[in-house]
């Protein structure tokens, strides 16, 4: 059983180029200074979460790393090279499952390969394999409307896996799901990420989820979005929900929660005085 601790993983990742290196990135929307400056490094195979209040700029940062937004300032390097556009090996998983309602599950999963020009037979075979991997065997020819929210997110995950990514950017992928489904999907994600060995940037509102899944949790404050704390999670892998009751896990959750509550209180005072 693989019980590498975070320490060991940390050392390993500093020896090779990080998969993501963000320096001095800022974002402005008109006069509003929404994000930054932030610095961020994600090692290969490292799982990093960002938690923070709504609208603090987490999604903005994720989109900048995914080349869906141009930053106002700063630089982004993925796999040692500056961005020139959305990368083939970066996979993005959105909160609302971005499945196309007029395509079957298989055709949705195959979309990424289809865009890359993979032949019909080959991409459908590969898609079918992935559909099995995420546990949707038997639903290949169903349409997204016939699936539950959790199942649609699995389709999104299968598609994300189809291009053999070295980086997954997940923007609150379980946000629209109920508690039980979230727990199952978290375990699902861990399995997948373990298998592929990719780096992950995971945005979530749930402190529990962040602690369960990550090697490091970054706490983001709002107005403008910037990192106010970095909490290493020193739990053995592979992880299960039971790990959350470990004392180090509880301590981490407390620490994160204290930061967030502080931020929320500051925000409330600010809005009250603004009225």
């Amino acid at each position, binding site marked *: 059983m693989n019980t590498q601790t975070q320490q060991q993983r940390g050392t390993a990742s500093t020896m090779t180029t990080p998969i993501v290196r963000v320096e001095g990135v800022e974002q402005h929307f008109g006069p509003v200074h929404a994000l930054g400056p932030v610095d961020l490094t994600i090692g290969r195979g490292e799982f990093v979460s960002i938690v923070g209040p709504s609208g603090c700029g987490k999604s903005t940062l994720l989109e900048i790393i995914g*080349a*869906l*937004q*141009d930053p106002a300032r700063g630089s982004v390097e993925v796999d040692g090279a500056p*961005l*020139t*556009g*959305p990368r083939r090996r970066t996979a993005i998983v959105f909160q609302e499952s971005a499945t196309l309602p007029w395509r079957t599950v298989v055709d949705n999963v195959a979309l990424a390969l289809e865009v890359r020009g993979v032949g019909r037979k080959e991409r459908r075979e590969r898609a079918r394999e992935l559909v099995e991997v995420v546990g949707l065997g038997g639903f290949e020819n169903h349409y997204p409307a016939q699936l539950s929210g959790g199942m649609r997110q699995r389709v999104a995950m299968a598609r994300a896996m189809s291009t053999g990514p070295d980086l997954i950017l997940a923007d609150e992928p379980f946000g629209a799901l109920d508690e039980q489904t979230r727990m199952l999907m978290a375990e699902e994600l861990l399995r997948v990420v373990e298998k592929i060995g990719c780096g992950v940037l995971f945005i979530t509102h749930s402190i529990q989820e962040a602690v369960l899944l990550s090697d490091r949790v970054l706490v983001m404050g709002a107005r403008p979005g910037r990192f106010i704390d970095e909490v290493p999670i020193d739990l053995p892998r592979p992880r299960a929900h039971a790990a959350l009751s470990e004392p180090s896990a509880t301590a981490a959750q407390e620490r994160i929660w204290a930061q967030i509550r502080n931020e929320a209180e500051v925000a409330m005072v600010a809005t009250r005085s603004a009225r």
Partner: protein
Amino acid sequence: MRRSSVVPSYVRPTPRRVAGLPSPLWTLVFVLVAVVAVEVYARSGAVSRLDLIPVSEMLSRAIELLGDRKFVVDSLLRSVLLICASFVASAVAGVAVAYAMARSRWIHRAVKPYVNVFYALPVFALYPVMVVMFGTGVVPIILLATLFSVVIVIANALVGFESTPAIATKLARSLEMSRSQQLRKILLPSALPDILAGLKLGLAYAIIAVLATEFILATTGLGQVVNRAYNNFDTIDMYAGIVFVSVFALLANLALGAALNAFDWRRR
């Protein structure tokens, strides 16, 4: 300095200006270019004055018409009154029918298919029937215009009534509201944005129906001014009338839109 974008073009934020102008100014540019083009073409001599006159002359004649008492009273006011009458009639009838449909499932099932296909049927074809039955006075026009615009009011008001959230109806029941209280305090306010949308469309349709009927059947009214001018080869009055009608329709729709938006709680 701006570096080049790494974002695919179709996800980039829309520019606020193109060639220095924001989009509303470009709208103005389009209108001005069209007006100038027509003006130049009309004055160029390439087209006969029996076919086209310059925009400036259209506008000056239209303004003259505003000063002509006979025009204002016989044509403009008459059309305005007909439009108002049919609009009010279709508004009241439309909301009432929609409410009836929302309350009674039988009425809903009976009327809905007709609402859906109504605008596919050329209701104008009924005008000759109405004229023969009611004469060439105001009655056929008001009837036809009301009939034409009531259906769109029904369609929109119905959407409004039916999209009242179920929780609101439960609330009404738990507070033991009477039917009329429920209508006034829950249903109408909830349906209001859609009803307002229906009213705006209802006015647009009433204007179209009244003016089109006047135009085709040339009795009196704003529409008839254009018809008569065309048949008399009076291009000046014809174009002036067309400009007048167009501006009138536009202003009336904008005015009602602005007035109704004040009640639309979705726009707050």
